């Protein structure tokens, strides 16, 4: 029995998909083999910005091994239309042009044509035989340069929307919005300490190990089936339906195991091209990206420029804050600046706030969601300014955060009022942690050490649509079909919630992630919604099963259903102690009383996804001569609401921290003057390896989310938010030098220390 009277929730059973994954039996997209399979490859733009004057596919088509070549002209032209894909709103015309460029290419790596051939080598050879004539245009890759008057314009027809109104100005700024609360000027006037700083961050990629893939089969009846790696099979179905202008009923998406997504596997890239090639050839067509295609042709998260100003009184109260946030959208509008603005000051209760956000197009890949999209950039700015203010005031930075922490009833600058949240509880847990209370030993080898802290917030999306379909086996086990693809242990966390509800063990539930024809519409696995939202559906399914089993028992025992109780996993008739049975016992007979027992439930809860807060503590050691930062110890503290499977909560926290460390210390898209990424491989795009990290320690705080029957809050995203700021604060503590540009890579750190005598 775990805490809170739960039997299954809070325990750590082995995940249902674990053995298949560690033994290599799990089926991923690249494993798909079909009879008559053709292999596809993509022709990509070598230029960051150019007009396509002509595409000549004749040489490729003449190759004996080539079966079909397609370009944007094979896609239906669609009008401007906005669609919500789960983590972001997308203009479908842009989505189509991103799949195959029409008229212009907007970044190096932009797809212009697709080929299907008898094998991959022929397909790759044929790509070189496609002749594209370009008129090269000036390009712009930096957010501030792109905002300047006279910058090269990506979309000649795009007028800036400002404060909700379309203006006459054609510029790369797609949108400027503002959130305002109170009177910041008055707030700053009250303050005794005011700090204003500028920050830059670079484009970074989610870096999932499995590259994008899609295998499409368009059969003689016009029915399209796609096997793919995605965070949302139904989202893929919607996108295919819109981009190819075909009814959803003609599209079936089969989601395979997913080797990481982190927000980057929601938009489609290869799927429509594979579908067109299959339609042309009548054969199934498989496409798999190489790593450089993933870097250059999919959606990283943006580089950004931020200016943050915060003020506090001498007794340590925040009085005002303002932020100017300019985020790169990439080739098409839609950066996560809106989400960043919703998070930037949210761990704090500040009466006067103004936030200005700018969504800016640049000649880089269209950005996409990445774990708490927009929030990490924002926290890097806020959390280092808070550190500076705490230092100026001479107060402990965590005590400062507790004193100014957001709580139930605090209003976010973008409008919503917090329900019950664990912001202060999380900060207090960090403050009281053994790590934070320990003293940091001096380095013995001429290096310097320091400690830093930072906090972070992520909304957690509200519920969303989820469907679950179950059938009860005569032995009392349950086959559970779900539409949520499992990217972080959700088969287990959802099955556990069903098991808890009906008094079974986690192993009695057999969860299956199924295709879009086999289950009701389910929103993407994203926004930290799945254990919350699909778990909510699992609880409702359990309730439905209890009702159904009472009906069956009523028939079997010939007693009224409403006189049957269900408690501690046992059904019993109130007036006769003999008439009782566990779920399993009843299951063996239930089929005789009305046919097989099944249930289907769909939910779209309206309560809050919970809101997630995290506070991190890090100790670093710095080689001043080389600028290299080593991490000695790292502790992540986070409110999980209720940790359904604590190991997977810890795993999410550790994974997020590691990605945040990579973002903070080394990861970045490095562009040359030609607008080309020079480090599109894991050799030079430096994600941390196991040798670069200590074991990440975790402390789970549980402040239940009142909108969920078991108190669940999403946990997957917020852990990436604090690390860059925590590292910057630790580097300052060690050296006395503040770094305000990411990544804080060895050359940058060395230079900053040399220039500032650190």
């Amino acid at each position, binding site marked *: 029995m775990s805490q809170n009277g739960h039997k299954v929730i809070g325990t750590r059973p082995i995940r249902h998909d674990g053995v298949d994954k560690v033994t290599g039996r799990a089926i991923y997209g690249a494993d798909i083999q079909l009879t008559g399979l053709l292999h596809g490859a993509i022709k990509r733009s070598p230029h960051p910005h150019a007009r396509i004057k002509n595409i000549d596919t004749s040489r490729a088509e003449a190759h004996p091994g080539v079966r079909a070549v397609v370009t944007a002209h094979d896609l239906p032209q669609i009008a401007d239309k906005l669609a919500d894909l789960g983590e972001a709103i997308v203009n479908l015309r842009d989505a189509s042009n991103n799949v195959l460029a029409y008229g212009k290419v907007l970044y190096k790596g932009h797809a212009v044509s697709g080929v299907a051939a008898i094998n991959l*080598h022929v397909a790759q050879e044929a790509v070189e035989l496609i002749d594209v004539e370009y008129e090269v245009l000036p390009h712009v890759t930096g957010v501030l340069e792109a905002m300047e008057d006279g910058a090269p314009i990506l979309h000649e027809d795009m007028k800036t929307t400002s404060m909700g109104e379309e203006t006459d100005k054609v510029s790369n700024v797609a949108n400027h919005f503002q959130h305002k609360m109170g009177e910041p000027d008055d707030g700053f006037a009250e303050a005794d300490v005011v700090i204003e700083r500028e920050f830059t961050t670079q484009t970074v990629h989610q870096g999932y190990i499995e590259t994008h893939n899609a295998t499409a089969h368009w059969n003689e009846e016009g029915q399209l089936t796609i096997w793919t790696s995605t965070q949302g099979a139904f989202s893929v179905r919607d996108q295919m339906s819109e981009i190819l202008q075909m009814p959803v009923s003609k599209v079936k998406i089969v989601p395979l195991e997913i080797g990481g997504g982190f927000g980057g596997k929601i938009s489609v890239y290869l799927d429509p091209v594979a579908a067109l090639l299959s339609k042309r050839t009548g054969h199934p067509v498989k496409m798999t990206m190489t790593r450089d295609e993933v870097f250059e042709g999919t959606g990283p998260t943006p580089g950004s420029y931020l200016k943050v100003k915060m003020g506090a009184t001498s007794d340590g109260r925040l009085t005002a804050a303002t932020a100017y946030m300019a985020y790169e959208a990439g080739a098409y509008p839609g950066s996560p600046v809106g989400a960043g603005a919703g998070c930037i000051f949210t761990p704090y209760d500040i009466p006067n706030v103004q936030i200005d956000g700018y969504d800016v197009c640049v000649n880089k890949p269209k950005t996409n969601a990445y774990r708490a999209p927009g929030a990490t950039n924002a926290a890097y700015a806020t959390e280092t300014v808070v550190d500076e203010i705490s230092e100026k005031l001479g107060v402990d930075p965590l005590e400062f955060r507790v004193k100014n922490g957001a709580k139930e009833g605090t209003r976010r600058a973008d409008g919503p009022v917090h329900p019950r949240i664990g912001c202060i509880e999380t900060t207090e847990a960090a403050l009281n942690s053994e790590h934070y209370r320990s003293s940091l030993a001096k380095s013995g080898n001429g290096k310097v050490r320091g400690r830093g802290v930072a906090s972070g917030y992520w909304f957690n999306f509200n519920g969303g649509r989820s469907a679950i379909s179950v059938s009860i086996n005569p032995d009392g086990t349950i086959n559970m079909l779900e539409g949520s693809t499992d990217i972080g242990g959700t088969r287990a966390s959802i099955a556990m919630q069903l098991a808890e509800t009906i008094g079974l063990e986690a192993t009695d539930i057999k969860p299956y992630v199924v295709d879009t024809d086999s289950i009701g519409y389910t929103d993407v696995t994203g926004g930290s919604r799945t254990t919350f939202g699909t778990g909510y559906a699992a609880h409702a399914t359990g309730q439905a099963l209890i009702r159904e089993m009472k009906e069956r028992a009523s028939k079997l025992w010939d007693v009224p259903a409403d006189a049957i109780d269900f408690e501690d996993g046992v059904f019993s008739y109130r007036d006769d102690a003999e008439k009782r049975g566990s779920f399993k016992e009843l299951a063996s007979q239930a089929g005789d009383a009305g046919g097989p027992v099944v249930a289907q439930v769909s939910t779209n809860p309206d309560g809050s996804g919970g809101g997630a807060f995290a506070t991190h503590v890090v100790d670093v050691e710095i080689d001043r001569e080389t600028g290299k930062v080593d991490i000695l110890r790292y502790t992540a503290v986070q409110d999980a609401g209720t940790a359904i499977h604590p190991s997977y909560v810890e795993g999410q926290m550790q994974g997020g921290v590691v990605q945040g460390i990579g973002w903070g210390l080394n990861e970045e898209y490095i562009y040359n003057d030609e607008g080309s990424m020079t480090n599109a491989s894991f050799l030079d795009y430096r994600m941390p390896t196991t040798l670069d990290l200590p074991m990440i320690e975790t402390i789970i705080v549980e402040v239940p989310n009142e909108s969920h029957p078991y108190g669940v809050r999403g946990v997957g995203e917020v852990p990436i938010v604090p690390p860059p700021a925590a590292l910057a604060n630790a580097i300052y503590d060690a050296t006395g030098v503040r770094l305000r540009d990411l990544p804080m890579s060895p050359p940058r750190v060395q230079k900053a220390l040399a220039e500032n005598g650190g």
Partner: protein
Amino acid sequence: MHAFDYATPESVADAVVMLSDQGKNACVLAGGTDLIVQLRENRRRTDLVVDVKRIAELNALSYDAATGVTIGAAVPCYRIYGDAEIAAAYPGLMDAARLVGGTGIQGRASLGGNLCNASPAGDTIPPMIVLSGEAEIAGPNGTRKVAVEDFCTAPGRTVLEVGEFLVSLHFPAPVPNSGAFYRRFIPRNEMDIAVVGVGASVVLSEDRSSFVSARIAVGAVAPTPLFVREAGDALAGQPVSDESIQRAADLARDAARPISDMRGTAEYRKHLTSVLTRRVVEGAVQRAKE
């Protein structure tokens, strides 16, 4: 990747014939940890791959305390550091052999391949230079010998002529009171390419208070791994001191001609050359004293 033929000659003579016949479009395969990647990524095109791993001379590994060690050009790193005697005699070379890639890569990667690949950042090349390595080359006109420091001529280019290939590497036996050391700087702790790599070997006086001679070589700061003769010479006859070592480090820095790229700016690389040279000479001195 384009289609190519694959051959496995079993003698040096057969390999020379195959390579000569095919001319420029043939390439030699040792461990393949560079070559296969380059072919797959279309960075290189070939009509014939000549796998030299079945030739006895290319697999030789023999050590003699008087004459030194001979390492066949295709011998993988793990066999080299796996030989206790060789590992004890050439710790400076082991520094590099143990850090190429990782365990899996070291099962295949050879010193010969690292040298013939002629990357300015090849990790085993600076230590091979400072240990006075000599390359034995076979070709249509018989065999010839070239000092390792003269082997690489430009990024990816070597002294090898059409039809020629590397048979083995030879290093003289270590003398008393000598020590060698190699270290590279990378932003992470593994799986990275040297931003700067420095190798040093020193011979100390009998009382170990001064340098008799020294050799210093630097990687990733010029079109080829760089033998900085003047930096080592500046130590000869000098006392072992912070000042003498710093002077050698300054000379190595001055010799460096790095470019700015995604792995570091030229300025940063020059700075690192000085820092690493100092640390590496100190490491070599330490080993000489052990």
